[in-house]
């Protein structure tokens, strides 16, 4: 076992543990903070798998922007504590069926592919990655920027207060 595989298994255990903690928390702030740790683990894993630019983006966008947005919304809304079970029984049946199907498919896939061929270490340096993506995927980059613009306008429009509420406040 090389040092890289030891780091991989350590990070995998960290990601699985923190994600499991996150999805079982009743307190939303705790869930979001655990998920931030999980995304930091994912960022380190991206770095290990040779994608330093994506690791930086994971920290900046996932762990930074998206999770902070979740924290803002959790702080903004007054969420009453639910007394019911955290995982309702009626929802468990579809979840269990999906889990069984999915785990079966995962086992089939994993048993079928290349036995012991290990990944070699390699790094896609950010400059080379950027050159590649602008050369081969410039249309996709433009579409991505368009998606972000549409999301911005959509979020502004949806989140706007209704005109009646504004008038009431002005009076």
């Amino acid at each position, binding site marked *: 076992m090389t040092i*890289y595989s030891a780091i*991989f298994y350590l990070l995998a255990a960290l990601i699985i543990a923190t994600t499991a903690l996150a*999805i079982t928390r009743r307190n939303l702030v705790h869930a979001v903070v655990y998920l931030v740790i999980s995304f930091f683990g994912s960022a380190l894993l991206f770095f290990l798998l040779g994608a330093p630019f994506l690791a930086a983006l994971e920290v900046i*966008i996932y762990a930074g922007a998206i999770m902070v947005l979740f924290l803002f919304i959790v702080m903004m809304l007054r969420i*009453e504590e639910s007394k019911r079970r*955290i995982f309702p029984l009626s929802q468990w049946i579809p979840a269990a069926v999906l889990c069984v199907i*999915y785990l079966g498919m995962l086992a089939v*896939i994993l048993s079928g592919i290349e036995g012991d061929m290990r990944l070699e270490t390699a790094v896609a340096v950010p400059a080379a990655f950027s050159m590649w993506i602008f050369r081969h995927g410039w249309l996709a980059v433009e579409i991505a920027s368009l998606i972000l613009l549409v*999301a911005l306008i959509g979020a502004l429009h949806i989140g706007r207060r209704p005109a009646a509420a504004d008038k009431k406040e002005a009076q």
Partner: protein
Amino acid sequence: MIVPYSHVLALAGIVFLMGMVCTVTRRNLIMILLGLEIMLNAGALALVGASLRWMSMDGQAMALFIIVVAAAEVSVGLALIVCVYRRTGSVDPNFTETAAPEKPSV
């Protein structure tokens, strides 16, 4: 020499499964959106591993666009949650249990 690609795939699969369980079972719109984020992250993880397996940058490019889509999705989704909260006063996806104030009382 890191690990076989199947181990990366297994990790991504387990994380995806946890996100799916969170999305399907939790009764809170914010937790449902968090589950979606976990699933997208697992997809990005599998793609980055595949990019290293086949020594091609396509996987990393797809992971980049997954991050873009996640950012767009979460902004619109959270705006919708705020909108729903203003209308019903709760973030429970089962709106019929919490009385909707705008429902006409006939």
